[in-house]
Every structure is written in structure tokens, then in C-alpha cells.
């Protein structure tokens, strides 16, 4: 086998000349595209929103690709190995309803308000307090996440290919810096679409050949039962009647309300990194369709992420272990995807798979720095430092902030190297703001009474609740039973309950403060809230071009999938 035998401390895979050539071609192409697109990124609208001229398909693929980074691919394949098909909840109920909701309900407001960002919308709807809180925290978190992505890529490349940490960090940051600084969001979106194809063609052979080897789905299930008797890895809802019946220690309430209604809604509808891709659409109908198109592809991603994890349980001749107990020579859960890649892919195909992983990491970095450059320039620099500069000045600031953001990311990557636990904290930090932000944005869109101070204090209270619940459960496990209703709740389950508590607090505080404070006048809310905005309908479009038809179709397929894998 191309992968190493247990006990041999070398790399997971060995690349041949053709594999290296495939990787080199990818780097040359993305740099070439960056230089080509530079001449089109002249105005602020071009650089930060790709000229708002992307079709629904391009915006939709970029939207879903921005979340299809390699950290997610490796991590969720590892989660599928660890927890079984339950991990698919994060791709189905944990994504599809939120994507459809974004397209049909929220996108018209983001688009019609002509905002450049989510903090930009908050400024229009609530004023500077909520916007500044959201912008500063988002910019800070985004740049830290970019560093985490960079470090994670360097570690994976070191483990999988034996490349040095410094080499991976320097090559990836230089490439991302050049192409994003040159073409702005144009470059980021073009590369996300390329990455989408690379990931699918690089990983799709794993489930195809895996199912051939096991004799189809039933053969795979039989092998898993044989290898792990008495454990259920192939049902999604059945084992969730009680936290004690599944390895995640999660109850269905946490999945439906914590994941489906809080985390997922927060991430897919208010995380500017993904929303920015849809804002680049060329008209309102495209902006509504883009996340719905993305939802169909998102529904299919478990095929190349979850299924390889399950197949790993069925065919690998050794057991993978958690990262914190892995001994030299043992493989971790997160190694399952590269291991399966090496199992089925020889020279050429291996290069394609590794290129897909590299592309995923670089797209993750590019997504973060392009979102950072936009929020920094439009929501921090322009309102608080230099208000009335010419457009060219802000484009130049966008380019410089991309470069500076990458340097800060490199610093973060090295900081994480010396303080590994920081990686967990940075990822947790990001989650603190996601769930409450959804409450603030959606209440502001749907209820015109919500006041300026209601929005600010609700958001702040939600964030503080999230941080408090996280710290209590992390440092005193006795709190897990209190907040997650079971001492068995694993970190993934705890995060869902944490989000649910944060959302509820945000909504309650927002409503209470709103009831005792003065609402904004109607004139200031036109185009920002449901009751005062004429949302364009598609009555004259054929049913094939109506977002609502496709949104309903996506939800219907989601229900069918839940029944099949119940």
C-alpha cells in the first residue's frame, strides 16, 4: 500500500512526479488567474463584491465552497468515522433549512440595502453600537481563523507529505496574498469555483471504489457491524431518543434547535465570509437563487466526506483513535480521508486528491482574508478613521489590508504552533458570535419595532452567555449536565446547547430592551425590514426560475434523506 504501515514513522502518502506536476499546475493557474483579474478589480464594488456581476451558479458554488475547506473535509470525515452517519446532520438539517431561509427570506434585505457586509446591514438597521461590536469581533476572529487554517494546512502537509511547516506556510500565504490582493473577491470566487471541482473530482473516487470493494451500502453496513459489533454507526435519528444511546451524547432537541435553528441559521445567514459570496450576485433573483443552488450541492457533500469516514470503519485493517491518545505509529480519526485516498488512488489520482486538499486550505485562507479586508475597510476604517476618501483610496486600503491580514495570520499560525490549545480557543471564539448574531439580524429584519439599543444589548447578552456557558462547561464538567441535560454530552453536543442558550438569551434581551426603549422612525427602516420593504417577486418568471420552487424542492429532498437514513 502507498500508505505507511503501522509503526513506520514516515508520511501517509508518497507523491510521484506526475502528482507534483499536478500540484504545481494548480499553483501556476491560480496565480495566473489572480494577475488576469487584477485589471477588472478597479473600484470598491469590484474589489470587495466582485462587481456584483456573478451569476446565481457562480455565487452559489462560491457560497458553498467557502465552507468546503480542507479543515472541514478532514474534520468531518474524522467525525463520521468516530460518530457514524450522525455527522451528516451538520450537512443536512445543520445547513439546508438555513440556506433556503437565507435565499428566500433574508437575502432580499441584504441585497436591497446595498450593504457591503453584515456589519454594514447592522449599521443601517440598528446604528453604530451593534455594527461596531459585530465588525471588530468579526475582523479579529477572521484573521485568527485564517492563521488557524494556515497552521492546519502546514500540519496536514507535514503529516501527509512530509513537507516542512515553514515551507507550507510561506508558499500558501504568498500565493493567497498575491491572488487576493490582485483580484479581490473576483479572485477568491474564481478560485472557490475551481476548488469546488477539484474537491469533487479528487474525492469522488473514494466512495465509488469503496462501495465497489464492500459490495454496496448493505455490504458496507454488514462489514461495520462485523468489525464493531453492538455499535450503531449507520442511523441518524434512531439513536438520539436519549443522549446515552449514541456516541456523541446528544439528544435530538440539541440537533433540531441547537444545530438546526441556532448554529446553522447563525452561520449560514450572518457569517459574512459566506454571505459575501451571495452579495456578489448580479440581481436580487440571482442572490435569492444562489444559496438555494448551493443547498443542493451541500446536500451531496456527505457522499465525499461522511461516506469515506464510514467506509474507513468497514475496510481499514486497523482502528483509528482520538488525536489526544494517538501513539507514534497510530492513526487519528482525522487521518481517515488521506488514508482512504491512498488506499484507492495511485499516481495522478493521488496528486489530484492532494491538490484538492491544498486548494481547500488556500480557499479557506483566501475567504477569511477577503472577508477581513472588506469588513476592515468598510466597517472599521471608513466610518471611524477616514470617512470621505475617494473610492480608489478604499480599494488601495483593501489591497493593503489583505497583505497585512496575511502577515497577522502568519503570526497567528506560529503562535498556534507554540500553544496548541489556542487552536481550540480560536475555533470556539468564532462560535461565540454566530448564534446570537442570527437572533439580532433576523429580529431586525422581521420586526420593525426592535430598537437600536435592543439590538445592541441583545447581541452583547447573547455573546456573553455563549462565553459563560463555554467556560463553565470547559473548566467544570459538572456544568455539562446543567446546560446540556446529560453528563455524557461530548464537545460537539455541548456546542449545540451553548448556541441554543445564547440564541434564547439574545432574543429575550432584545425583546425586553426593545419594549422599554424608543423604536427607530419608519423612514429610517425602509428597505431594511419586512413591513417597510417591497421585496421583488418573481410572478412573471417561469416556475423553473422561481427561487421558492427550488427552495421547497431542496427541503423535500432533505426530508426524504432523513427518512431513508432514519
Amino acid at each position, binding site marked *: *500500500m*502507498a*500508505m505507511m504501515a503501522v509503526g513506520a514513522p514516515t508520511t501517509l502518502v508518497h507523491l*510521484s512526479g*506526475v502528482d507534483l*506536476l*499536478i500540484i504545481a*499546475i*494548480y499553483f501556476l*493557474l491560480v496565480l495566473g*488567474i489572480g494577475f*488576469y*483579474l487584477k485589471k*477588472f478589480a478597479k473600484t470598491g*464594488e469590484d474589489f470587495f463584491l466582485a*462587481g456584483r*456581476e456573478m451569476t446565481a451558479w*457562480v455565487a452559489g458554488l462560491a457560497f458553498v465552497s467557502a465552507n468546503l475547506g480542507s479543515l472541514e473535509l478532514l474534520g468531518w470525515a474524522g467525525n463520521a468515522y468516530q460518530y457514524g452517519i450522525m455527522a451528516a446532520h451538520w450537512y443536512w438539517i445543520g445547513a439546508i433549512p438555513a440556506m433556503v431561509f437565507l435565499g428566500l427570506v433574508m437575502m432580499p434585505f441584504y441585497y436591497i440595502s446595498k450593504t457591503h457586509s453584515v456589519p454594514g446591514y447592522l449599521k443601517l438597521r440598528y446604528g453604530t453600537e451593534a455594527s461596531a461590536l459585530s465588525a471588530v469581533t468579526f475582523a479579529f476572529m477572521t484573521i485568527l481563523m485564517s492563521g488557524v487554517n494556515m497552521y492546519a494546512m502546514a500540519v496536514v502537509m507535514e503529516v501527509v507529505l512530509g513537507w516542512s511547516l515553514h515551507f507550507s506556510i510561506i508558499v500558501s500565504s504568498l500565493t493567497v496574498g498575491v491572488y487576493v490582493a490582485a483580484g479581490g473577491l*473576483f479572485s477568491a*470566487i*474564481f478560485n472557490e*469555483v*475551481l476548488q469546488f*471541482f*477539484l474537491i469533487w*473530482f479528487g474525492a469522488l*473516487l473514494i466512495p465509488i*471504489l469503496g462501495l*465497489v*470493494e464492500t459490495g454496496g451500502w448493505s455490504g458496507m453496513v454488514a462489514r461495520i457491524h462485523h468489525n464493531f459489533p453492538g455499535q450503531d454507526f449507520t442511523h441518524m435519528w434512531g439513536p438520539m431518543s436519549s443522549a446515552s444511546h449514541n456516541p456523541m451524547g446528544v439528544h435530538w432537541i440539541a440537533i433540531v434547535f441547537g444545530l438546526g435553528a441556532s448554529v446553522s441559521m447563525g452561520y449560514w445567514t450572518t457569517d459574512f465570509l459566506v454571505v459575501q459570496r451571495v452579495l456578489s450576485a448580479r440581481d436580487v433573483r440571482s442572490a435569492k437563487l444562489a444559496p438555494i443552488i448551493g443547498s443542493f450541492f451541500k446536500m451531496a457533500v456527505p457522499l465525499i466526506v461522511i461516506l469515506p469516514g464510514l467506509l474507513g470503519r468497514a*475496510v481499514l485493517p486497523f482502528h483509528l483513535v482520538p488525536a489526544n491518545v494517538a501513539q507514534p505509529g497510530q492513526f487519528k480519526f482525522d487521518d481517515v480521508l488521506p488514508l482512504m485516498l*491512498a*488506499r*484507492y*488512488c*495511485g*499516481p*495522478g*489520482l493521488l*496528486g*489530484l486528491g492532494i491538490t484538492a486538499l491544498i486548494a481547500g486550505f488556500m480557499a479557506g485562507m483566501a475567504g477569511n482574508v477577503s472577508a477581513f479586508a472588506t469588513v476592515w475597510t468598510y466597517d472599521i476604517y471608513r466610518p471611524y478613521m477616514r470617512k470621505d476618501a475617494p473610492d480608489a483610496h478604499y480599494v488601495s486600503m483593501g489591497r493593503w489590508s489583505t497583505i497585512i491580514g496575511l502577515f497577522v495570520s502568519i503570526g497567528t499560525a506560529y503562535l498556534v504552533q507554540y500553544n496548541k490549545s489556542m487552536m481550540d480557543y480560536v475555533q470556539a471564539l468564532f462560535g461565540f458570535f454566530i448564534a446570537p448574531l442570527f437572533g439580532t439580524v433576523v429580529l431586525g429584519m422581521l420586526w420593525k419595532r426592535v430598537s437600536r439599543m435592543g439590538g445592541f444589548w441583545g447581541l452583547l447578552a447573547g455573546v456573553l452567555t455563549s462565553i459563560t456557558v463555554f467556560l463553565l462547561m470547559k473548566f467544570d464538567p459538572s456544568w455539562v449536565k446543567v446546560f446540556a441535560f446529560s453528563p455524557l454530552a461530548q464537545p460537539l453536543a455541548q456546542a449545540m446547547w451553548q448556541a441554543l442558550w445564547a440564541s434564547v438569551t439574545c432574543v429575550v434581551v432584545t425583546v425586553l430592551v426593545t419594549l422599554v426603549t424608543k423604536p427607530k422612525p419608519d423612514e429610517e427602516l425602509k428597505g431594511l425590514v419586512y413591513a417597510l420593504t417591497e421585496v421583488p417577486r418573481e410572478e412573471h418568471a417561469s416556475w423553473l426560475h422561481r427561487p421558492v420552487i427550488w427552495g421547497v424542492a431542496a427541503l423535500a429532498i432533505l426530508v426524504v434523506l432523513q427518512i431513508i437514513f432514519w
Partner: protein
Amino acid sequence: MIEKRQIIPVWFFVGLLLQVYGVLILASGLAHWSHPPGGVELSNLHAPVWWGALLIVLGVIYCAKYYPRGET
């Protein structure tokens, strides 16, 4: 109103990449036809050959459909 610009569609770059990768993977598969690389499961199915061919076909379709026709 923004002037309509002639940016090469991203789908053309996708097609280009698929074609180049398809050729390299197909060639690699053919080179290893009679002596498949050791350690790769199901190498008797010659996945690189048909996967490379599929990439070439899709790449040609994308390039032909989205070939930049020049200024209009």
C-alpha cells in the same frame, strides 16, 4: 450603469484545468496499465484511465461552451 466587461468565464478555467489534469491522469493510468502501483486497492479496475478520460471529456465540453469569443 456599469459597462459590461468581457471577463473570461470561470467555467473556461475549470474546463482548462480538467483537460490538463485528465491528460496527466489518463497518461499515468496507461503507463501503469500492465504493472499497477503496489498497495493500491482495486487497481485492476484501472480507475485513472476512465477517470482521466471523464475529466478530458468534461473539460472539452466546458472549454468549448465557454471559450472566450472576444469583444462584442
